[in-house]
């Protein structure tokens, strides 16, 4: 790659390149032919059935085209054919690592659409579950990211060990490990018992210790630092323009957390901080998530301490024959992966007329190519890992 190419490349990487078309043809025959390699849909590191068509010059990526749709399960179409309630279990299967937040986002949108109130206790329980989900999601993400970096499973195993503890909580509350189907319009399905709350409290108390150990294993590790720092840099301008949200946006230094901005639920009552990165590289994305987990523990502690008594479900809420008034609503929350939003258009029938999901990881992938150009295959893998995608949500 010649110097001018590199200059062009780096300028491309740093400017908020809005064109979208970023096909670069570099062909200098000394440097060899370009090799077009398909990574995915069956590839150990694409976290499912994602596919990237990378064009390589040696090992350097000169072009990267993501291919979607291998897990396109027609979620939105199905949402138009089932009732509002019937869509709830489907949202579990969107981002299947964080079904609780998906549930919440959907419930929030429907509550907006139907003007449904939510009792305070349910709001607290939602916060608790959302933060548990955040812990779960970020822990797993760190594990998967490290797997992509080439760890032989150890961080992932530790992550999943902790995940099991959270899943146990979810399971004993909602009945299912992953597909909780727990939130309802106007509250939650079951009231957490005192035992459950002690369990959650215990988990919140010891999660910090686990994070310490996890960080000792990873954060100071020279190899990981070398692998991740300066890799996959994203500028705040491009991040904003590309609609990047969540930890990935905050890693670029943009202070935008819907829990603060939209102040939905009872979040304003809690004292927590929003960690911000300065480089927008893979390391920042990883670290922001780790730091967010520590904040989540704080929120958990506060929410568990302040959980009010009262009904878990609004008595006026309807389960069957639920027909919101015609109209539309867009509700969004800060999911672990970013802004997860639901846009609902009701025509007064029991099924939504239009049921649209704003999937954070799908939109975060917009900048994948920009982040990967000029890096090597090995970097592309961890950059993808640091975006934190779940295909169920990307392809829906």
């Amino acid at each position: 790659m010649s110097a001018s190419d590199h200059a062009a490349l780096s300028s491309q990487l740093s400017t908020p390149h809005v064109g979208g078309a970023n096909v670069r043809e570099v062909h200098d025959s000394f440097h060899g032919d370009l090799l077009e390699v398909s990574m995915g849909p069956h590839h150990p590191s694409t976290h499912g059935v994602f596919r990237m068509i990378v064009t390589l010059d040696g090992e350097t990526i000169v072009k990267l085209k993501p291919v979607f749709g291998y897990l396109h399960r027609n979620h939105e179409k199905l949402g138009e054919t089932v009732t509002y309630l019937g869509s709830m279990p489907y949202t579990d299967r969107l981002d299947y690592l964080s079904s609780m937040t998906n549930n919440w986002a959907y419930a929030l949108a429907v509550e907006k659409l139907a003007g449904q109130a939510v009792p305070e206790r349910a709001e607290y329980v939602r916060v608790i579950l959302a933060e548990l989900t955040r812990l779960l999601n970020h822990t797993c993400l760190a594990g998967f990211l490290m797997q992509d970096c080439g760890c032989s499973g150890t961080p992932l195993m530790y992550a999943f060990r902790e995940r099991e503890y959270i899943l146990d909580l979810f399971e004993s509350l909602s009945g299912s490990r992953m597909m909780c189907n727990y939130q309802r319009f106007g509250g939650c399905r079951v009231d957490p018992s005192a035992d459950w709350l002690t369990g959650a409290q215990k988990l919140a108390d010891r999660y910090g210790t686990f994070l310490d150990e996890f960080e000792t294993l990873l954060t100071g590790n020279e190899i990981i630092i070398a692998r991740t720092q300066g890799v996959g840099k994203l500028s705040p301008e491009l991040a904003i323009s590309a609609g990047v949200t969540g930890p990935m946006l905050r890693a670029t230094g943009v202070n935008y957390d819907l829990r603060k901005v939209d102040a939905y639920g009872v979040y304003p009552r809690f004292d927590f901080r929003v960690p911000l990165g300065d480089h927008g590289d893979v390391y920042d994305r990883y670290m922001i998530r780790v730091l967010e987990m520590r904040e989540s523990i704080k929120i958990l502690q506060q929410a568990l301490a302040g959980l009010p008594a009262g009904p878990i479900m609004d008595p006026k809420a309807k389960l069957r024959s639920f027909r919101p008034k015609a109209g539309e609503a867009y509700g969004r929350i800060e999911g672990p992966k970013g802004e997860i939003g639901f846009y609902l258009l009701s025509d007064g029938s029991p099924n939504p007329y239009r049921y649209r999901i704003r999937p954070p990881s799908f939109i975060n992938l917009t900048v994948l190519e920009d982040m990967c150009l000029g890096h090597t295959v090995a970097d592309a893998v961890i950059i993808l890992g640091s975006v934190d995608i779940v295909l169920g949500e990307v392809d829906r």
Partner: protein
Amino acid sequence: MTAALILIAVFTLATAAVALSLRNLIHSALLLIASWFGIAAFYLWAGAEFVAFAQVLVYVGAVSMVVLFAVLLTRRSRADTVIARDSVERAISAVITGIAVFGVLVAAILKTSFARLSPAGVPPLQSGTGVSPVISAPTATVRDIGMQLMSAHAAALLIIGILLTVALLGAVVLAAQDAPESKQESP
């Protein structure tokens, strides 16, 4: 023992001959490596242990790499590894030349009487007994080589050192003509 020598010779020559006549360069290179092994085996047969291993280390371990890289780098793009057929006339003339040279050499070898050259005490060949794996020919332990190298041939060593350095500089400069840019790029 002669049998071993003949075996080694046949192996070496065959691999070399095939290597030089193949059209697939990768196969050529790999076969040539096999032939280098044969040569190393010959050194071993002759009792030059150190050189034999040196041959393997340098040729098989390093020269082969350079050759393979060169092959991979200079294939015309997308085309197969198979290179174009060479002209037949050239081949024929080359073979004729080769055979002529070989004839001259063989004649010279056969004419010479080696009896007087042979050092006393070299058994013509050792067969059978299996008791004494001792070789009475000149041996060159590493220590001998070292002593030689550092005394009689110290000057040569230095010359080799200079040669290697120059070769290094030359080869790198030749092969990496866009080096100055790459230096700018490297952080």
